[in-house]
Each structure stands twice: as C-alpha cells, then as structure tokens.
C-alpha cells in the first residue's frame, strides 16, 4: 500500500483514486507495464517524468485492439514536456497537481458518455477495423481532422498520432495505406499537405540525396569550370590554365595569359571528375541513399506519396458513431471460404433439411481470434490475406467436405457443420483452436493468439440470421 501527497479530500490507495463516481488508476514509474488489469478502471493517470515510460504506456493502451482500452481517458501528471507527437496528441489532458482532478473528471465523463454511444459492430478487414478504431477515437474526442506531424522517429518522416500509435515507427507506411483505404471508402477527405518520396526497398522516408558519377555511382567527385580561350579555341578545365608558380591563368595551347572574362575567355560550363573511376562527366546522376536499408536508388524509382490532412466526411462522421459497412471483398476472395450471404443461404437449406429429418443434427460455430489485429499490424495487407488463406486451409483440412466456412471479418469466421452434433462440433472446434494457435505460433515468432469460439446446435424452427446473431452475441457477451 502506498500513499501520495495529495489534497486532503482525495485519497490515493494502491494507485487508485475514487473521484466523483469515477475510478482512476495511477500508473507511475514503479508500476507494471501490463495493461490488461486496467480494464475495470474509468480513466488512467500516468504519473511520470519519464517521457519514454509515459509514451510506452500510451502506446500500449491506445494501440490495443479492444475499445475498452484504446478509448479509455488518459491524463498525464508530472509531465516533462516532450516533442513526441504521440505523447503530445494522444492524451486527454495534462494536470500539474491532483487539485485539478475535477477538471479531468469532467473530460473523462464526457468521453465516457460518448463512448457509450458508439456502435462496436465488427467490420470486415484489417484496414476497416483500423479506420473504425480511429473514427471511434475521433468521435469520443471531438476531433475533426487527422493532421500529419513531422516526426524524426517515424520511418516516413511524418506521423498521424491517432493512427500511428497502432504501429511501430518502422511500419509507418501502413498508416498511409489505411488512410488511403478510408479515403477510398469516402470516410475521410484529403487536403494535400506535402509530398514525400520513399525507398522502394523498405519504404523508408529518410533519404540522402547525392550527385553521383553516372559511370560508377560514386559521390566522390570534384567539379571544375571549363575555360574557353577565344584566340586559340582551346578549351579545358580551369586546372589546365592554372600556372603552378604564380597561380596566374595561362593558356596551355598558346601560352597567352588570360586577361578578362568575356573578352578573351569565358567559362561555358562545368565539368566533374570522378575521383573513384577517373572519368569525367557533366551530367551527374542524382541518387537517393536510404538511411534505413542503405539501398542506393535512382530518384525516378522512389515511391512518391502524398501526405494529406484528412477531414472527416459526412459519411465518416456518421460512421464514427454508428459504425459502417465496408465492402469486405478481400475476405470474400479467400479460396475455400464462401461469402456471408451464401453462407446464410446454405444455412437456410440446412435448416429446411433438418426440419424433415429431426434425427439429423447439424451445428453452427463462430471463431474469433481476438488479438489477430496485432499480427496484421506487423504483416500488412498482403500478410493479412495470406494468414487468412492459411487458416482456411487448415480448417478445411480438419472438417468434413460438406461443412462450409465464411468470414464475417478478418478476425471472425463462421462454420456450418453438417450432420455433426454439439459434442462432436465442440470437440472439432477445440481441435481447430489448438491447430490455429499452433499455426500462428510457428509462423510468427511465438505470437500467441487468443481464440474464442462458440458452438450451437442448429435449430430447425429459427431463421438462419437469428441463429447467427444469437451465436455472435453469446460469444462477445
């Protein structure tokens, strides 16, 4: 038990404060960085002068896939000013003493109120889920725009704190992809801010532009003026004319002294000499060396990207509160799975079939991989599809050929298990859970996925939609 020096009316006990019916938890430098125990608290106060520690906690909470974490009000106390964009933009307020608890309590209540208004329906893809997350955050904080902030720690040189908080700085290009997706869906509207060029190998934005020799790519070159002596038409680099004894300029062809530029000589251009390959050239190549991966790239092969200020569109504002339906085409394209409408139709036929054959038992199941978003953050869009394909392959290999699978979104899938009673279905699902966990663990550096599933016997007299809704509710509630 620890006590902090606070106003008499406020008592801190085990880093908890109860104030105006809100339960605050104080994270200080001695606290554990595990955030899962924080779920029961209404708001968090980070009490640390250590900016890196505060940032770590902010990232963990705001980057969490669960809205109960990422929307949680977070305040800073004893904050040592930092230029870090995440730290500056992803807190809900800064206080200097616990006397100001009243102020942040009001903010927390407002956020809390707005949070209760949100719709948490699941969306199909990783991008959709990320955009939904950002929209939810913006809605609860009354934010209207997503502004890029120059950031040395970001791989592309700019950061959008509200979305970048979900990614490591090296994965910042994914932020642009997700914003692009949101733009395509009409949820956000871009206003051009800046153009950047990225490495075509690693997407890094820190590039060193250099003039290099067109023959050997070395930047070790020196430039000289070319001098044209009018009377004898000799032309050569300035060093040809330089008299080593008195530093005067004398024509090497006719031995006349150069007197007056524009009258007896001029300098019509410049010549470069490569000290590496000993060749001469006038038109050097401009190449960009990526500081991250050291790749040397011709500038025309750099990847241009627009950095925009994004504003919420009308659709975006509505979607922030009420959720939105994304096309979900990506998850429907996965070989071995069928689309949700087809799944529902097949389920309807199965219900009709078992109506007539009451002896026959079939089941439906839902599998949700709770933290798979964490994995998609690392793998990006291509990785997401590949993971889903592998999961479908694995599931298909371990169910009957008559069974069918459909993705609700990139973390949730439904199974129709034909002629399979509840016990058998549950055993199948347990087996699938273990296999999927193993698959991910083996392929992604011991990443532990959290898989929840629910099985229900198919009821002959209830509609397919109703039964699926019931199943989903039971899983998530």
């Amino acid at each position: 038990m620890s006590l902090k020096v606070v106003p008499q009316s406020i008592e801190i006990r085990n880093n908890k404060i109860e104030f105006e019916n809100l339960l605050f938890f104080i994270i200080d430098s001695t606290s554990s960085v595990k955030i899962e125990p924080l779920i029961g608290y209404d708001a968090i106060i980070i009490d640390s002068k250590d900016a890196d520690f505060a940032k770590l906690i902010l990232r963990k909470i705001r980057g969490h896939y669960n809205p109960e974490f990422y929307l949680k009000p977070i305040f800073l106390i004893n904050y040592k000013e930092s230029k870090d964009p995440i730290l500056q933009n992803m807190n809900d307020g800064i206080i200097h003493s616990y006397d100001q608890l009243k102020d942040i309590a009001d903010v927390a209540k407002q956020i809390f109120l707005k949070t209760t208004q949100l719709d948490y329906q699941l969306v199909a893809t990783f991008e959709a889920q990320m955009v939904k997350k950002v929209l939810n955050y913006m809605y609860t904080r009354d934010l209207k725009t997503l502004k890029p902030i120059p950031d040395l720690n970001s791989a592309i040189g700019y950061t959008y704190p509200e979305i970048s908080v979900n990614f490591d700085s090296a994965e910042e290009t994914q932020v642009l992809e997700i914003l692009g997706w949101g733009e395509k869906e009409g949820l956000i509207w871009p206003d051009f801010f800046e153009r950047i060029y990225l490495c075509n190998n690693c997407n890094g934005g820190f590039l060193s532009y250099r003039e290099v020799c067109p023959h050997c790519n070395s930047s070790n070159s020196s430039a000289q003026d070319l001098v044209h002596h009018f009377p004898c038409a000799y032309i050569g680099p300035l060093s040809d004319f330089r008299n080593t004894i008195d530093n005067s300029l004398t024509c090497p062809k006719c031995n006349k002294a150069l007197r007056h530029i524009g009258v007896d000589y001029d300098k019509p251009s410049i010549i470069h000499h490569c000290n590496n390959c000993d060749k001469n050239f006038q038109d050097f190549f401009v190449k960009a060396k990526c500081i991250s991966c050291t790749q040397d790239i011709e500038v025309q092969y750099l990847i241009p990207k627009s950095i925009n200020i994004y504003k919420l569109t009308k659709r975006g504002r509505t979607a922030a509160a009420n959720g939105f339906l994304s096309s979900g085409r990506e998850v429907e394209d996965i070989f071995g799975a069928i689309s949700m409408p087809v799944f529902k139709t097949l389920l309807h036929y199965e219900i009709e079939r078992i109506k007539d054959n009451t002896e026959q038992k079939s089941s439906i199941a839902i599998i949700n991989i709770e933290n798979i978003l964490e994995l998609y953050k690392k793998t990006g869009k291509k990785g997401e599809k590949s993971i889903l394909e592998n999961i479908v392959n694995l599931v298909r290999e371990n169910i009957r050929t008559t069974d069918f699978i459909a993705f609700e979104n990139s973390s949730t899938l439904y199974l129709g298990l034909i002629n399979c009673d509840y016990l058998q279905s549950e055993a199948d699902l347990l087996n699938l859970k273990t296999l999927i966990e193993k698959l991910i663990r083996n392929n992604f550096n011991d990443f532990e996925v959290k898989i929840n599933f629910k099985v229900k016997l198919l009821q002959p007299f209830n509609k397919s939609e109703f039964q699926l809704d019931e199943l989903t509710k039971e899983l998530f509630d």
Partner: protein
Amino acid sequence: MRFLDEFINYMSSVDAAKLFRMFWFFFIFEFFRFFLIEISTIIFWKFDSIFRKKGIADARLSLLKSQPLVSIIVPGRNEGKHIFKLVNSLKEQTYQNFELIVIDDGSDDDTAVICRNLEHNGMINAFYRNDVRGGKASAANLGLRYARGEFIVHFDADCSYDRDAIENILVPFFYNPKIGAVGGNVQVRNYKESLCATLQALEYYDTISIGRITTSELGIYRVISGAFGAFRKEALDRLGGWDIGPGLDGDITVKIRKLGYVIHFEPTAVCQTSVPVTFNRLIKQRLRWDKSLIRFRLRKHRDVFIPNDSFRFSNFISFVENVTYNLILNVKWYFYLLDMLFNFTSQLVFIVPMNIVLYTVNNFMKFLVFSPFRDRKNEGITYFLIYIPLMVFYFGYFLRIVRTTAYIQEIFFKASYKDNWNPAKSSRQAKALKL
C-alpha cells in the same frame, strides 16, 4: 543551222597555233592539271596499289590485332536530331573499339536532352556541353581534351558512314607510321533532291574522290574534311587541337603537315553527307569555304612560302598548287576573258560556244575515264551523264563567280571575321591577333 555551219567552218579553218592562242587557258591550266595530271596519277596509283596490296593487308591485320582505342568526336550545334541515327549506324561498324564523344556547342534546341538520354542509356560514351556557344573549333577541342583514344576520328552528326569506314580510315596509320592524318571519302547522299545537289555530287566525284586521290599521291593533299577525318591523337595534342574557323579543316591539315606528318586520303573510307539543296545555301557555304583560302593560306600560313628551318617542299608545292589553281587562275580567267574580248572581238561569237564545247567534252571524258577508278558509285553512270553539260556553267561560271566574290570580300574586307558561323567574341579576338 546557219550558225552551226559557220561555227564548224570557222573552227575547222583554225590551225593548232591559233586554237592554242584562243583557248590557252583551257589547254595550259584546265586540261593539263585536271585531266592529264590526274589521269596519269590515277593510273600510277592503280598500278602502285597492286604492290601495296600486301602492305595494306598487313596493316589491316596489325590494326585488328592491336585494337587501339579510337575516340570518335562529334562536335555540333543543334544536331540532336541526327545523333540517334548516327549512334545506331555506328553499331554496324566492323571496328568497334571506339568511344563516342558528342559535344554540344550551346544548342538551343533539344540536343542536350536527346544526348543526355543517349548517354544515360550507354549509347554515347560521353556527352559534353558548352552552355555558351564557343564555335566548332572549341567544341572539337573539348572532345579532344577528354578523348582517351590513340586515334581521333572527327565526324559530322548529319553524315552516315559505310560499315567498314572506321576500319578503312585507320588502316593507313598502320601502313605508314609517318601518316598523321587520314581524310575520308565524302560523297553526296542527297544528290537526287535537287539539280543543285546533283551538280554538287558530280563535283564531289571529281574534286574529292578523284582529286584527292591525286593530291594524296602527289603529297599535296591539303584539306581533311570535317565530315570524316582521322588523326593521331599525339599530333593533335602537340597542336593543341583546332584553331578558330571558318576553314578549320584545312587549317588543321596544314598544321599537321607542318609537324612533318604525311597526310593521306583513303578512298575506301566512305562517308555520305547531305549538301545544300538550293543555290542560295550553296553560295553561303562556298563563300565561307573560299574565304578561308585567303585567310589561312595567304595570311595565317604564309610562312609555308618562306624558306626557313621548318620549310618543306611538299608543303610549299601544296600551297602553290592551291593558290595557283584557286586564286591566281581565278584572276587569270578574267584576264583570259578580257584577252578574248579585246583581241578576238569579232570571233567571240564562236569562241564562247567553242569554250563550252571544249569543257563539256573534257567533262564527259573525265567522267567516263575516271568512273572505272571509283570504288563506289551512288548511281549508274547514265544518271549523271545528262547533267554533265551543265557542269561547265556550274563549275566554270557559277562557282568561279562565287569564288571571286569570296576572295574580294576576304582580301578587302576580311569578311570571314564577320561570319556568324563563329561566335563574334572569338572572331574579334582572332581578328585582333591576325589569326
């Protein structure tokens, strides 16, 4: 018909002495120099080539074995449109150990963009550009400054070359180590474009293909054409390259001769060029060329006529022949005209047509006799035959008048220094220094 009868009667009544008196100009100068000397030299050359055959074959072998690096320099202004064609045609060359250096003398069109692109794609080894125009000599010198080859081959961007042209122009260097420069055989590509171009094609046949074999054999070959010439780099380095033009081709040839090198013409190294298609353009070109005779032969290199330490008889003869047959005879032709006008006034009506007949017969004879000696013919003999009667007017009158104009302009007004072929800044300096 009556005139024809009278003309024939008159001419048949004239004895040999009187014929010679009336047409002395033709017999002494034209027929002697441009037929008798040329035909005898050509026959000797053809005969001699039998004995040289083995030496030439050995020289070729030596060239192909040693594979010296050759620097092809192509100076020019606003020539970008021709460069891609040139680069492609060079891929066909039998001799490939060359570096191609293109020099842009302050072009104001897309030349720089085109050439930079070709350079980036490895089709040109080096491209240098003077943002400020400096004249052709300075552009050529810039190429020379950065050339790495043992031999320098000077090209014009708008010319095309036989696929063995580079090989053939290099062979003489290996046949005779004293050879410092070799001139290529420039032929007219666009000879069908206009009458003007056809007449020039005939002229080039005569003065270049045959005329230069003769002067080369006699050791008095004096102009290596800028369109196609090869030089020992060592010789050019000793001279510091080209001097200010116009007439820089003839000037560099004289300077190399003065160093003691032999200058050679190689008829098998063929280059095709486009000549002016209108008489107006031709006049401009020839005025520039002809002025250079006065500026370079009589002014800049007049020391060739003076016996001193560097005096060489072949150089002296080369200059004397050049000055005699171009300047003196040009003036003398007017004396001849006056001579006829005053001394044969009543017979002038027969002398003029007779002169035309004599020259025309001579031209036909030369064309037919020299044709077998030409390795390359653009077109069968018959194509040109119908144009030969015009040559007397083209060569004997038109070009003579242009030449006279050029000499007067240069002798009395030093007009070559005002020619905008060269930038004014260079011409001012050249004039002040009497270069």
